[in-house]
């Protein structure tokens, strides 16, 4: 008699609807896109736990070996470029020779690496770690180019852990006449490079030779040379050396969860409240109507911005406010109009005859009746909320700890990414947002044509 009986019958409106849906190619494309996004979200959550994603996105030392603002590798390779990735040479794979003297040990470390790329590295850093108890070891650095040239890089005492920014060495820059990360890799300058013309890369095997003087027995140094590239990974990096892939991956579950919860929260509660108002009438209905009218006057985005600025930008608070303000939206009036005739329907009377209470009638009889009409609205609402979250993030009101697509866009905006030509920085998150929007909208529009009886024959 009730719900279950109808659903089991072969021509239930649901199954019938989904059978019709399969005839729309746009619905299939939409479902494919959504499946892809859900897969990505699952992968992100499984591969990188929530706490780790947060830690990575906070940035700092974790990303010491990534270049700043590197574009994705595939982008460079597709356009036929051969920009260098980041090269790392560590003293673990270095050739070490040690000579013992009285009180002093001299150790020679050779860090070799091959450089066969068309562009110069973006930065050159040397990380040194030494263990000593009192007297700091002393190190002299020399750069050996493929054609046997030796460029001294100075000498210094080293502490327990040190970072030598070779590419920011002012003296070396003046001596080379070029920034070190270019000058050290450039073709011979003596043949003459016209000012303004960029020098060419000298390809081949390079060596960084470290000659360390140890003043204590049995001490050692560990060295790591990092020649930062101009490309990195699938998504590139941002101004804080963070791998954008973290944000793009983790942005997926965040966006989907936000969109889904907000859409479900608003549509289902709105429907239940509208049904309750229609069924119980009287002051409840009047109160719901007046609340809706008040709420329509309040502008959503400014209130969200206010809450974000004055209270907290936590994504869950935002979600709560969105749902709270979304419940008494204009949708209530629409559902009310749909539910009013249903209230008088014979099957409701039948339910009352067997003694069903008000709550049962609202939840089991009235709400399920309009649910099919609600589904397209609900699906098309999801991207609206996904974009709302991105909008808030673009305004600088994104969640402070979570990586989201909107926050990447915000960073890109504040760093003038477009002006500087870091297009990948904007295009990556924008493309994902667009895909989400398109996927849900395509499915939603097809569902609308299937489930909305007035549209069915058009």
């Amino acid at each position: 008699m009730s719900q279950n009986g109808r659903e089991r019958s072969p021509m239930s409106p649901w199954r019938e609807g989904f059978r019709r849906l399969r005839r729309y190619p746009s619905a299939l494309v939409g479902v494919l896109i959504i499946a892809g996004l859900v897969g990505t979200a699952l992968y992100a959550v499984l591969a990188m736990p929530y706490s780790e994603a947060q830690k990575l996105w906070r940035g700092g030392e974790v990303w010491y070996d990534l270049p700043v603002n590197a574009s994705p590798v595939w982008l460079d390779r597709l356009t036929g470029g051969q920009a260098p990735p980041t090269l790392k040479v560590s003293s673990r794979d270095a050739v070490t020779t040690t000579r013992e003297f009285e009180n002093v040990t001299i150790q020679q470390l050779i860090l070799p690496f091959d450089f066969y790329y068309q562009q110069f590295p973006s930065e050159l850093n040397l990380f040194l770690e030494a263990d000593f108890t009192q007297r700091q070891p002393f190190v002299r650095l020399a750069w050996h180019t493929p054609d046997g040239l030796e460029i001294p890089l100075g000498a210094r005492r080293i502490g327990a852990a040190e970072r030598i920014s070779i590419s920011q060495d002012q003296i070396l820059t003046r001596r080379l006449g070029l920034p070190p990360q270019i000058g050290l890799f450039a073709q011979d300058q003596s043949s003459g490079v016209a000012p303004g013309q960029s020098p060419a890369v000298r390809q081949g095997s390079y060596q960084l030779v470290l000659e360390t003087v140890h003043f204590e027995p049995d001490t050692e140094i560990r060295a790591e040379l990092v020649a930062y590239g101009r490309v990195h990974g699938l998504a590139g990096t941002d101004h804080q050396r963070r791998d954008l892939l973290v944000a793009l991956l983790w942005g997926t579950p965040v966006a989907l969860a936000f969109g889904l919860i907000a859409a479900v929260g608003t549509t289902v509660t709105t429907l239940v409240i509208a049904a309750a108002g229609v069924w119980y009438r009287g002051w409840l209905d009047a109160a719901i109507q007046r609340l809706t009218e008040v709420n329509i006057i309040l502008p959503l985005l400014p209130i969200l911005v206010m809450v974000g600025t004055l209270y907290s930008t936590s994504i869950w608070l935002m979600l709560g406010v969105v749902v709270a303000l979304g419940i008494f939206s204009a949708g209530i009036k629409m559902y009310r109009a749909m539910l009013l005739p249903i209230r008088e329907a014979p099957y409701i009377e039948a339910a009352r005859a067997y003694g069903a209470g008000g709550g049962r009638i609202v939840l089991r009889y009235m709400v399920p009746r309009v649910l099919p009409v609600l589904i397209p609205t609900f699906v098309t609402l999801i991207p609206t909320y996904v974009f709302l979250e991105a909008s808030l993030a673009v305004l600088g009101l994104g969640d402070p700890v979570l990586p989201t697509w909107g926050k990447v866009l915000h960073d890109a905006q504040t760093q003038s990414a477009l002006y500087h030509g870091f297009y990948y920085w904007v295009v990556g998150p924008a493309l994902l947002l667009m895909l989400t929007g398109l996927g849900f909208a395509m499915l939603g529009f097809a569902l609308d044509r299937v489930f909305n009886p007035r549209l069915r024959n058009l």
Partner: protein
Amino acid sequence: MMLETGADLNRDRAWMRDLRRLALFVGKRLVALVVTVLVGVYLTILIANMGGKVDELRLVQIKTAAAEQIRADPAFHDLPSAEREALMQAQVQLEVDRLRLDEPFIWRSFDYLYQAMRLDLGRAEEMHSDAGSRQVYNIIVERLPATLLLFGTANLLVFFVSVYAALGLSRRYGSKLDRAVIGLAPTSAAPAWFYGIFLILLLAFVVPLFPAGGMVAVPPPDDPWAYAASVLKHLALPVTAMFVAQIFISIYSWRTFFLIHASEDYVEMARAKGLPDRLIEQRYILRPTLSPIVTSFLLMLIGLWSGAIILEQVFNWPGLGTLLFEAIGHRDTPVIIGSVVIFAYLLAATVFLLDFIYAVLDPRVRIEGGRQ
């Protein structure tokens, strides 16, 4: 003669009855709307003041400012510390009295409400207009033309193009063009600022045809024609972004709307009678659908008022959206409340106007007043 007067009297009486019902209906709506605006504005006041918490921040700010002022002034350097302390207290007390911070927030909130409802917008706390005025009214009025220009142009364009195109499409639905528009409708899932970013990328940086932001070239040209040309050039990208973001969904929904009304029985009947298409369109489709069209047109006009915070941010457009965002950032509650109040009033006035027009035009509403 007698008969005519009787009919006249009857008509007069019917007129009076209708008028009375109309007045009753209008009065009820008016009261409901005023209450609605009252509650909405009061909620805004509560939120913008964080339920009174902004006052604590304000008090701390006043105290630091006073302390800083006295510390920095060389005239007070020789004063003993107790006297300086007293001076500081006096200054703080002066400010507190001025802003009436010693009263409970609840009392002041009703006071704010009263002022807001009287449209006495007051003075801004932090912000000032570009001309230097601290009056909230001047600050808002200064930004209004920019917002009206941008959103007026874009929304009017979208509205008329979409209604016109939708009429055309509903006439030959199922055609390739119709299906293309349906296929493109999902692109409207993205908001205008999103397309704005791409337009800036393509047309301002990759191919530098248009400026990336702002409303007029810097420095603004002196010649009015050159000025207008510069504004037009700056207007192109944001208007295009809004147009692209809204046009397809707008055409789609109007098209569906017209199609639903075109399949009504009375339209079929007119078709069966062999009336020309244009006549059917004007008399049988457009006339009954006029009220929803007018409603959405008016609501669109009201929507202009709030601008769009993010689109204006992306294009660096000096409009009301940017103003509101700045005001929130400065916690400048008078400016926030001022713009929300004006929005609420405009919306309420529009709704009232619509109710009134419907009541006059639609006989069903007129009857409702008399139905017992």
